């Protein structure tokens, strides 16, 4: 059965007051709790997305030996609010020959595709919104909506640059879904389940229980997943569809103001979600370094901070990669996916399956310690 926030909260005493007020098994209570938690998640994700723009400018400045924004607020930390205000107050321009319906729909699709993945994002063992039995599969499926949004954004602007950017972006996203999905399948093989709760629960305990150290195939799968996810979110060095110097900013050229803000916000939140998924699948998720049996609210808060910390560490790596490597051409990008990453991912899957059969599911650490 899928575990939700509601079933987790139902084991506390204060929940009985709410049940007495709303009635037994009430739909209204469930809806209110879901809306409250979803609102919190969306607000936190949007803040992290906004701070991501600030972090990117500061980290890139650090790499390039200059100071980033440091005027607005202490250390320039309110810069993202200033950017937000600028974006909201810009004029909303639409080209006259553009397709109105699709022009309005494209940024919404990107945003919905990203925010819907927050429903299964593994924050902690109790506060995950819904722990679906097909959690990882659902996440990958819903983020395909971003590809459709990118294509529509490129098409609806009715301009040659945007169309090219949109087609390249969509083909990049659907191509890199394959190594990502196969790497996630490798983890599903190791954990025996597709739900985030089960996958993270299998990695509890000491550092060597993490799936990235389970066998060499899972180790390689982590890097395949990371590179594939970088390409799926259109992040450098795979960011040709939105390259500022090539295509005059590609598929979101004609978007101004808040619509452009939707595209940018969707991209930054997607990077956070993808690094969070990498942390949950490969790096142990929200588990504490020791096994804890008791289950209280402070433990949940520690778990939340652990997974947010791991995701932000991977976020730093993503930003670092962007400002280190040169941009790939579109044919190099496609050949990396189809000629290198996909065969490596398939080889990983087969190798991991063989490992599970030969060594009966033990990790390298367990074999070394002689279980």
């Amino acid at each position, binding site marked *: *059965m899928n575990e939700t926030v509601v079933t987790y909260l139902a084991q506390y005493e204060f929940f009985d007051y709410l049940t007495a007020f709303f009635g037994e098994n009430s739909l209204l209570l469930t809806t209110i709790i879901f809306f409250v938690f979803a609102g919190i998640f969306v607000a936190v994700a949007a803040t992290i997305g906004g701070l991501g723009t600030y972090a990117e400018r500061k980290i890139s400045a650090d790499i390039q030996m200059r100071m980033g924004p440091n005027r607005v607020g202490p250390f320039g930390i309110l810069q993202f609010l200033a950017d937000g205000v600028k974006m909201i107050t810009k004029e909303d321009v639409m080209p006259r020959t553009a397709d109105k319906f699709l022009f309005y729909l494209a940024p919404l699709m990107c945003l919905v595709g990203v925010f819907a993945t927050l429903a299964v994002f593994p924050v902690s063992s109790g506060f995950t919104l819904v722990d*679906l039995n097909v959690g990882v*599969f659902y996440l990958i499926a819903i983020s*395909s909506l971003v590809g459709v949004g990118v294509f529509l954004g490129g*098409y609806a602007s009715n301009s040659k640059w945007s*169309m090219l950017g949109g*087609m390249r972006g969509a083909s990049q996203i659907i191509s890199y*879904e394959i190594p990502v999905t196969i790497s996630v399948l490798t983890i599903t093989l190791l954990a025996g389940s597709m739900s985030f709760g089960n996958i993270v629960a299998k990695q509890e305990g000491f550092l060597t229980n993490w799936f990235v150290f389970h066998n060499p195939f899972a180790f390689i799968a982590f890097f395949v997943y990371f590179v594939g996810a970088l390409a799926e979110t259109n992040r450098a060095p795979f960011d040709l569809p939105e390259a500022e110097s090539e295509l005059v900013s590609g598929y979101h050229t004609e978007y101004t103001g808040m619509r452009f803000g939707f595209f940018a916000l969707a991209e930054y939140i997607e990077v956070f979600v993808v690094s969070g998924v990498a942390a949950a699948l490969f790096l142990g998720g929200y588990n504490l370094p020791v096994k804890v049996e008791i289950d209280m609210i402070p433990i949940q808060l520690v778990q939340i901070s652990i997974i947010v910390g791991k995701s932000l560490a991977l976020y730093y790596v993503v930003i670092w990669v962007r400002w280190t490597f040169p941009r790939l051409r579109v044919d190099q990008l496609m050949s990396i996916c189809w000629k290198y990453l996909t065969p490596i991912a398939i080889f990983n899957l087969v190798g991991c399956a063989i490992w599970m059969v030969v060594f009966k599911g033990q990790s390298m650490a367990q074999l070394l310690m002689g279980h």
Partner: protein
Amino acid sequence: MFLDILFLGSALLTVVSAILVLTTRNIMHSCIFLLGSLIGIAGLYATLGADFVAVTQVMVYVGGIVILMLFAVMLTGGKDFVSKAQSLLGLMPTMGNAWSYGVGGLVAVVFLLTNVQLLSRLGAMAQKKNDGSFESTVNKIGHLLVKDHVLAFELSSVLLLGALVGAAIIARPRKQ
């Protein structure tokens, strides 16, 4: 209660989007309405407790087929396509005149009555009710695919390989 709301919403989305696929002139808008219809059907699968099938539907159709259709529309002339058909009330293109529609309607009514007569027995077979208690189908589908239905599984992989190679060969650019 929640199941009823989800069912109603998904059913409305599916049927309205399908009818809009029929009536829109612009082919790009039709593809997007097909996308809406497919997402609605995924919601209907979710009300039936078929979680794996619902997510597979979203992944394959939304992430693959709709984008493929959009690409094909773009590569083959796109929205500059001009439809020369006459239309009924400006809404739907019509296929024939009143005589053909009359005969067709009569056939449809006879067909409908025959079907209702045949299917009334099947309706009585529906003993199980949808009470909202679902269990995960992922493990069971996995077991079924490699135990009972392994032949269809292997054949479908051969079919996909054939489709992959065939589509690449048919549509490759020719040196002319």
